[in-house]
């Protein structure tokens, strides 16, 4: 009996270890150790243990995991389906360029204008989707005959999102503090002599000289009205009078906007919560749209849009914009100072091929002013694609196959390598050897923008109303044409819009004829959105993104 107990104990310890040992022990016992199995008590002990074999435990664990996983899945599914039902209350929008902080007074960059102006902050006047000036905080305005006095009339009962009233005093303080502290875009008000309030709803701007661009400038940061009494951390918060409030800002990740319950005007937000997500990687952005993590993607690379446009639920559309891809020729460079060389390059470039290779959304642009800006004229016929003419001009300038023209072409890597490869190939065809250097943006800023040490350079100049760059001989283009500068000065000081536009038109034609650059194309922003989304602005949405009208009718 003692022996039996001992053997039973041994058996017990072995079964307690692991299933596999237990199994081995059993098989070896059954085959070799027969005397042990003849004993009744031992047999019964073994039977008891055999009645709960280890696979039962394994099955039980698997079942438990399966039930738990199922529960979690069901829970999440229930949650997600409830969020689908709520979609009309919230919408996610995928953007590309993120602002580093929300300080609109000190932080430059279109990424900040894009999300805050018209949504959180409002200006005296605003811009519509055709880039024209429309009323905002000011319901109307008058301009004196000499174009030196602007009188704005505000809506009655305007207020900030913190409840403070917005009146003429806030406007005067906002504009004056911008000029006095030289905040971002203060130069737009360089012609302003004084800003004063006349009663609670009237603001008077007096100018030193007429400034035809002033009204348009006031649609941007220069015209924003901020609350003098409000105290908040401008880097992470924003208090304005617009239809939205900043709910939370996570740097490089997202910006959440909530409808402003105290909004005063007619642009009441139609969607309660708008989440702006910053996705820099193109493929990640497209995956986010496909999986409905975002309902809108602005911009989407035109070449990549076919991967979502085949999906019946997604609409892909291009909107007009003021982005000009400028291939600048250094007008005082050792080789590019020769006008014939610059003209030859313009003739040698096949702009249509460039546009086609980028997906065909962009438009031809023959001069410095895009179609959404005043003074636009179709100048694409000035230098059509003509390789023979390019070769003639080059041989006139003294270059031949034995003495080819060698030029350096430096641009920032954010524009991709394709454009450099194509330009090299196109210029090679007329006998120009292009040495393409694709560099970091900081290196470009140093070499080209600051030191002006370049032959050819490429930048996307996305600003609107930026013709002044061609009238400024100090700018990195090194373009110095007295006639253009005079015409621009006349345009700015003109008292009527018609005169302003006609002077600009003349100046733009002169610039284009001089060929200080080739305007490769006018970039048009491509936006992709779910069919259920309405009211999303397509034009200019990289610098102007009013969201009050956006809805997701899922």
């Amino acid at each position, binding site marked *: 009996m003692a022996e039996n107990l001992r053997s039973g104990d041994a058996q017990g310890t072995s079964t307690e270890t692991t299933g596999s040992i237990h199994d081995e022990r059993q098989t070896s016992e059954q085959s070799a150790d027969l005397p042990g199995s003849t004993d009744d008590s031992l047999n019964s002990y073994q039977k008891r243990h055999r009645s709960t074999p280890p696979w039962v435990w394994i099955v039980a664990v698997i079942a438990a995991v399966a039930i738990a996983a199922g529960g979690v899945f069901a829970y999440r599914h229930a949650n997600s389906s409830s969020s689908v039902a709520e979609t009309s209350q919230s919408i996610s929008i995928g953007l590309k360029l993120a602002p580093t902080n929300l300080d609109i007074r000190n932080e430059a960059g279109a990424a900040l204008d894009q999300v805050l102006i018209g949504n959180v902050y409002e200006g005296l006047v605003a811009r519509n989707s055709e880039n024209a000036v429309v009323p905002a905080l000011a319901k109307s305005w008058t301009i004196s005959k000499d174009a030196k006095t602007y009188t704005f009339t505000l809506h009655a009962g305007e207020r900030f999102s913190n409840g403070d009233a917005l009146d003429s005093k806030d406007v005067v303080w906002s504009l004056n503090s911008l000029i006095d502290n030289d905040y971002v875009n203060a130069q737009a008000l360089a012609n302003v002599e004084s800003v004063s309030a006349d009663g609670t709803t009237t603001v008077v701007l007096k100018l030193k000289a007429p400034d035809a661009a002033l009204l348009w400038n006031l649609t941007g940061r220069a015209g924003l009205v901020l609350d003098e009494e409000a105290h908040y951390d401008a880097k992470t918060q924003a208090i304005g009078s617009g239809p939205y409030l900043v709910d939370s800002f996570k740097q490089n990740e997202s910006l959440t906007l909530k409808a402003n319950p105290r909004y005063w005007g007619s642009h009441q937000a139609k969607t309660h919560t708008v989440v702006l997500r910053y996705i820099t990687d*193109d*493929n990640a952005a*497209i*995956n986010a749209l496909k999986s409905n993590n975002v309902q809108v993607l602005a911009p989407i690379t035109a*070449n*990549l849009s*076919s*991967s979502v446009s085949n999906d019946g639920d997604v609409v892909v559309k291009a909107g007009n914009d003021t982005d000009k891809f400028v291939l600048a020729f250094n007008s005082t460079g050792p080789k590019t100072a020769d006008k014939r060389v610059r003209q030859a390059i313009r003739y040698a470039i*096949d702009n*249509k*091929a*460039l*546009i*086609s*290779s980028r997906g065909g959304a962009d438009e031809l642009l023959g001069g410095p002013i895009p179609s959404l800006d005043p003074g636009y004229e179709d100048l694409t016929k000035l230098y059509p694609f003509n390789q023979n003419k390019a070769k003639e001009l080059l041989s006139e300038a003294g270059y031949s196959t034995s003495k080819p023209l060698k030029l350096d072409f430096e641009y920032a*890597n954010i524009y*991709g*390598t*394709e*454009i*450099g*490869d*194509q330009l*090299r*190939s*196109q210029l*090679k*065809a007329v006998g120009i050897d292009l040495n*393409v*250097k*694709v*560099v*970091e943006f900081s290196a470009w800023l140093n070499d080209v923008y600051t030191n002006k040490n370049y032959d050819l350079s490429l930048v996307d100049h996305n600003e609107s109303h930026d013709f002044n760059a061609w009238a400024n001989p100090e700018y990195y283009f090194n373009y110095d044409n007295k006639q253009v500068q005079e015409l621009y000065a006349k345009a700015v000081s003109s008292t009527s819009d018609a005169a302003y536009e006609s002077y600009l038109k003349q100046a733009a034609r002169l610039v284009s004829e001089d060929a200080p650059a080739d305007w490769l194309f006018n970039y048009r922003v491509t936006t992709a959105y779910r069919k259920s989304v309405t009211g999303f602005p397509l034009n200019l949405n990289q610098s102007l993104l009013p969201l009050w009208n956006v809805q997701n009718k899922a």
Partner: protein
Amino acid sequence: MTSVRYAFTVMRVVLRSMWRRAEGRFSLLVLGLWLLVSLVSMFWTPWSLWWTDGYHVWQKPSMLHILGTDGSGADMVSWLMAGSRTNLLICVLTIVVTAIFGLLLLAAMLVRATMLAQMSVVVIDALISLPTVLLALILAVPFGPSVAVIVAACGFGYGLNLARIARPQALLVARSGYVEAAMSNGARASRVFLGHVVPNIRPVLVVQLSMSAGTVILAESGLTYLGIGVQSGVPSWGHSLATSVSFINVYPLTVLWSGLIITCVVLALNLFGDALRDCADPLSNAELRSIRQDGGAGQSSGEQQSSSEQQSSSAVLGQGVTRGSGQ
């Protein structure tokens, strides 16, 4: 003259025995094709590298463009062919730099001056923790992206690895009886290093260098993707991969070609090292042994015996000693 003929015979035998092995045959085929394509691309590619067509970007494979076109409308095959030339250059240069730098470090670790030897071990251990990519990034800032940056960064990193891995075997040789004997006979340290140590660690060198060759091809594509590899406009496999990878969702085929080529070549290089080590080792390759006995008559008598005896003091046989003790 006989020694030249002897070298040729050995090479032929080694290649033949590599050809008999499946992995050896694969690597010889792929590497041979690589050399051939590089050579051809110097004189001819189906389309000029300067040719682009903006109206026909991302074309599917067709008779005109066998593998289609890329994002600027250039012919994929031509760029991949020309790319093989650049990658071959990078590969060869990196092997040379790695070998020279690694052996110099190894020599430093073996010197009799204990202080210097110990210090170099510590310094190498410290430097080995420096990632190659970081090094390339640092170099690319002042010098700009170029082939030289890749070769310098990778040669440095792989040289450190080579020295560190070869050190134990080299130490065994350096402390062996025949090195003692040579030293006491007045042989110079450099002669001992080149004549005794290097031949005895040849198996490790072969494997390490072939792995370096494979890794530098991966490094080239990685660095080019990051924008610090080859310059824009220089054809390379990494360039072809990098330009097409952002369009992988829409045009997955273009990524496949350069990816497949890189995978095949890297695999071939790694297998090549293994096969070469086995086939060039007289201990594991009986055919080589017989050649050495017949054809090596002009060589020293000690070498003839070396193949059959396990314990001997000759340089070639030391290979057997290190192999035996190392495994």
